[in-house]
């Protein structure tokens, strides 16, 4: 619960959710048009989200 007050964690969580939603949509839609953009977009958001969550696990920044 305490981690929820760390903004890095909240931002990371948000982008993880968005990334997972986009990648899940790609999986469900198969090879429909434009899915490549969603796939790479999903990977970008998920990676950024994980990075922010990982940052929040370290010591607090100034």
């Amino acid at each position: 619960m305490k981690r929820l007050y760390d903004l890095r964690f909240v931002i990371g969580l948000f982008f993880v959710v968005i990334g997972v939603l986009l990648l899940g949509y790609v999986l469900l839609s198969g090879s429909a048009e434009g899915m490549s953009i969603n796939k790479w977009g999903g990977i970008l958001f998920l990676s950024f989200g994980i990075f922010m969550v990982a940052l929040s696990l370290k010591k607090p920044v100034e």
Partner: protein
Amino acid sequence: MNLQLNGIDYLIIAVYFLFVVGIGFLLKKRIKTGNDFLMSNRSIPLWITSLAFISANLGAQEVLGMAANGAKYGLYTAHFYWLGAALAMIFLGVFMMPFYYGSKARSVPEYLKLRFDEKTRTFNALTFAVMTVFSSGVSLYALAILMQTILGWDFSLSVWTAAGVVLIYTFLGGLTSAVYNEVLQFFLIVLGIAPLVFIGLDKAGGVEGIIQNVENAKLHLWKGMDHASHNPMGVDAFSLVFGLGFVLAFGYWCTDFLVVQRAMISRNLNAAQRTPLIAAIPKIIMPAIVILPGIVLLALQNQFPGFELPKNDAGEVNYNMTLPLLLSKIYPNGILGVGITALIASFMSGMAGNVTAFNTVWTYDIYQSHIKRNASEKHYLYVGKATTVAGILISIATAYLAKGFNSIMDLLQLVFSFVNAPLFATFFLGMFWKRTTGHGAFWGLLAGTGAAALMHGLTVAEGKGGWITNIHEFYSGTSQAFNIAAVAFIVCFIATVGISLVTKPRPDDQLVGLVYSLTPKQKDKAKIWYKNPLWLGVIVLVATLILNIIFY
């Protein structure tokens, strides 16, 4: 243009709303006093204040407006960043923040009270409060109109949903909640639009494709600045450097409480000084996100059908549709939801920034100063919360007013620009010339505002102005705005100096911490470079200079 959203897009928008409201609920427990609600108890970490500093400005005007200007004026638009914002942010961090933060003022108008007198503060507080709440309403109106145009959403639904969400998170968590959400919105806007720029640039043929398909006159910063008729912006170098680079940019970034407030809630003076300087680093990269889409669109228009911008009712090209058009042509459903959410976030960020600045100024500079002086912190917390609700309701009313009487909103924004134009002269003289008096500041401000109005009444640009008579016609509205600001600044400066010289100044001992020459200098020399505001300022300055040379 009509975008078709589907389930995944709506789900992404819903997740965003859930998170911003959730942040408000989380922070609710930490809000116990008026100071917590309105000033975040001056406890916000540096990286958050820095990103909030630029995010408070990253509203719809920035995201949609700069893309529009990118298509209209090309790379010249980058002057708003590489000439205007960067230098002003350096000046704020290095020279002005010690007085704002060191004086313990809770707001910019309160600094005016400490430095000058009550009437100067009240004039600034009242005009600022009215401006912010109307700006918030204009933001809401623009959001609803955009959503109606591109998504077919009902006007009232957009207004009440966006206003409702902003109300919930600002009411519950106050300034901290607004600032936290601004940082989330910053990342969402940057990451939501960056793929659009990347894919658009790739489709346009990369940098080579841009060079081959966009007229050369729109790919420079300084070329053709010898005369207003030689560049697409229609301005000459003097009006650009003095009007935009000095008066307007310094006036906005150094005196507008909406942005300065983000630095004033830092944990200490060093962090407050570094806030605008660290913010300047992403700020000078921001043209890649907000201006480049407009230039990319120009290249795409030359190579592919379907990239033509729609026209408005007057038959003129509607440049404001630049970003929505690119979203509709490049993004498929899924990431389209992220792009639309980024647009919504930009409107909400602008609105929340205005509302939180409004409630601080109203509570401290108007209510506490003129209505109830020595009440408890709890009392000011209730007043701050009530002001938040009132601010949102006035914003909603303004949005409906704008819908019915668009010309009234244009007039209001014009009047606000007259009030803003001379403001930097007052602060500049106040901080750096100890002889400046309260009477000089107050009447100088009024004279500068009057001069701005008079200049607008005597000149014409793009069919606007000249309501007294027409003695000069500018090449563009932008040029007219820069020149009006320059005249307002000069008149305010001269009037303030003149009146100050014939009125009695305050004794030196009352001005310690408020005026440069009477304030002990800080000893930053022992600190490592990234903690030293001066070094950070030099780094930003050099980076900006390099960008100006590269894109000459």
